[in-house]
């Protein structure tokens, strides 16, 4: 079985070129998603002291939940803490850009929203931020998906996506689940 060394090397180099092409296609797909759909990982280097989070302005209890700013932008602020989310239910409009902001006063948590691309860790010391657009009305599960202690299994919230015409902020721009 004559297998010349040059033939072996040549076949390996050709295969390496195939392998590198495959990986390049994957990188190009990531770049495409970034350029066209603005897909980014949920990086946000914005620090906040977890030990005094409850004393802050933005994450004070009365300011949590969904609020529409004067310029029409929808932001929902949620605190993740051992072992609940506050608020336990948020309302967001479908088909509009929404920004979710999370913080924790204690340990590492994380969230995903079922059926969406919302997924982020919530790390004490940082504000986590996800920009997204919900497509379908309905109630979605938002569990804590990172181990945060013995109560982790029960830590869950609801995201209520409503059609845009039923998304009605009050005088302060707030929308909450109870108002329904």
């Amino acid at each position, binding site marked *: 079985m004559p*297998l010349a060394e040059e033939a072996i090397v040549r076949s390996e180099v050709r295969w390496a070129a195939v392998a590198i092409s495959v990986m390049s296609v994957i990188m190009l797909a990531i770049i495409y998603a970034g350029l066209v759909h603005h897909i980014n*990982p949920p990086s946000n280097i*914005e620090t906040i002291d977890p030990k005094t989070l409850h004393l802050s302005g933005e994450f004070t209890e009365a300011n949590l939940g969904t609020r529409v700013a004067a310029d029409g932008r929808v932001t929902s602020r949620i605190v993740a803490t051992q072992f609940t989310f506050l608020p336990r239910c948020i309302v967001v409009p479908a088909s509009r850009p929404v920004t979710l902001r999370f913080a924790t006063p204690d340990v590492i948590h994380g969230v995903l929203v079922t059926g969406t691309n919302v997924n982020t*860790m919530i790390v004490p010391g940082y504000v986590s931020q996800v920009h997204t657009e919900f497509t379908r009305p309905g109630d979605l599960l938002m569990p804590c998906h990172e*181990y945060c202690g013995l109560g982790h299994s029960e830590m869950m919230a609801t995201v209520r996506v409503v059609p845009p015409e039923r998304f009605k902020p009050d005088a302060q721009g707030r929308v909450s689940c109870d108002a329904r």
Partner: protein
Amino acid sequence: MTHARNLTLAHLWIGFIAFAIALVLGVWQMWSRSPLPAPFLTASTYFSSVTAHGTAMAYVLTTFMIMGFGYYVAETSLARPLPAPRWAWIAFWLGVVGTVMAVITIFSGRAAVLFTFYPPLVGSVFYYLGVVLVVAASWIWCVLMIVAMGQWKRANPGRPVPLAMFATVANAVMWLWTTAGVAAELLFQVIPAALGLKAQIDVGLSRTLFSWTLHAIVYFWLIPAYIAFYTMVPQAAGGRLYSDTMGRLTFVLFLIYSLPVGIHHLLMDPEQSNAFKFLQVALTALVSVPTLLTVFTIGASLEIAGRLRGGRGLFGWIGALPWERPLMLATGLSFVMLGFGGFGGLINMSYGMNAMVHNTSWVTAHFHLIFGGTVVIMYFAIAYTIWPSLTGRAAPSLAAQRTQLWLWFVGMLVMTLPWHYLGLLGQWRRVATFNYADPIIAAWGPWVIVSLVGGVLLLVSGLYFVYNLLQFAVTREAHVPAVLYATAVHPPARVPAALNGFRLWNVLVAVLMVLAYGYPLAQFFVIDPPGALVHRVDQRR
């Protein structure tokens, strides 16, 4: 073999005993998560079990297997006695003491922190010290491997280091670099907190330090399987290794590209920037290359073997391979699982798709398949292959070994394929009890039970593996040593220093780590983010 026989047997037995216990815990965990009521289940017992299962599988089985196999390779491939065997035994006992310390602490409920630690949750200092002792033991092993290779090179100037040893030392060098991350996290952050010296922890820094270790550690686990692919499988198949040079290059590529990619475990974290995540994702694309090269090279080597045995046609050589040999069978099964698991890995590295799967069961399924499947099945096969020369006995029944391997393969697919699917549906991780009354979650129930069945098959297979090893003591047939290591089609008379040593590659690792991890770590000292209060899981309120 002078010293390796007892060392290797001792290490492998500790690893496999920890493995068997962890399998039982794993099945109980899957039962707990299922709709079927499980005994002894509380939040505390579940998360202590997860900690024990993870610590045993990720730190004990692996480290002891790799150390034991390394001593074996060092003596058999270099044909010289191990240097400083007393140090090897000191390392062994350090590792055993560390393991026992960690296990006792976990089972007393003082370390429900999971094997990835999760500061600011902080457990008993004895858990972390236990892990530190196991790592320290492995460092001694690393030094012994480097010294053994150095001694051989001085005695054989200009000759290529046998590939099996070159790869083992590449793994040792990589492990020294890898453990720096978790060592820094433990020594400077977690252990001081566990001792009560620090009341708060910079969590972003600890996660980033741990990520330094977290990816490269899986290559530490994986390289022994690849050593088997390159140096033992072609021989077992009755063929030759297609290219010795590509083998060396593969291990070198693992050494340099396993490390600067850890931030792909933090893609969903806020504390690392888009830019550095992109850089490390690009580097992750490169670390996929040595695996793709391996599939080609080993495939070509097997083709040589198949055609030598009379296989004809484009794929006919596959059927002609000696599948009755356990090492051959394990390789085929391992490659199938590598296909599934590797594909999953490509999904994980793209952050758009990672957002769909992060911290869902997809991740759990992925690493059980790629590590528990692809790698551990090769650990079994390696053990079966070297056990005759370790014990001086021939294998009592190859059929029993094949059955055990098939059972592992089937169990792994039955457990992990539905688990991947559940992850895509949104099932999240680290849950002791699901609310099966919720309609979304109720739909998952049947698949969770299917996974549990897979887990039970794995438990049976794992216990059967231990049984098969014990059976060697029962057989009376003496072992006739066979040639273990494969020869290359064109065995190199000389190789460049770059493929016979690690000086160049250490420089490149340093450069890559500065580029990829320099600012991501430095930023915590520049920004000085506020710390999180320590939450003790080992103390009275």
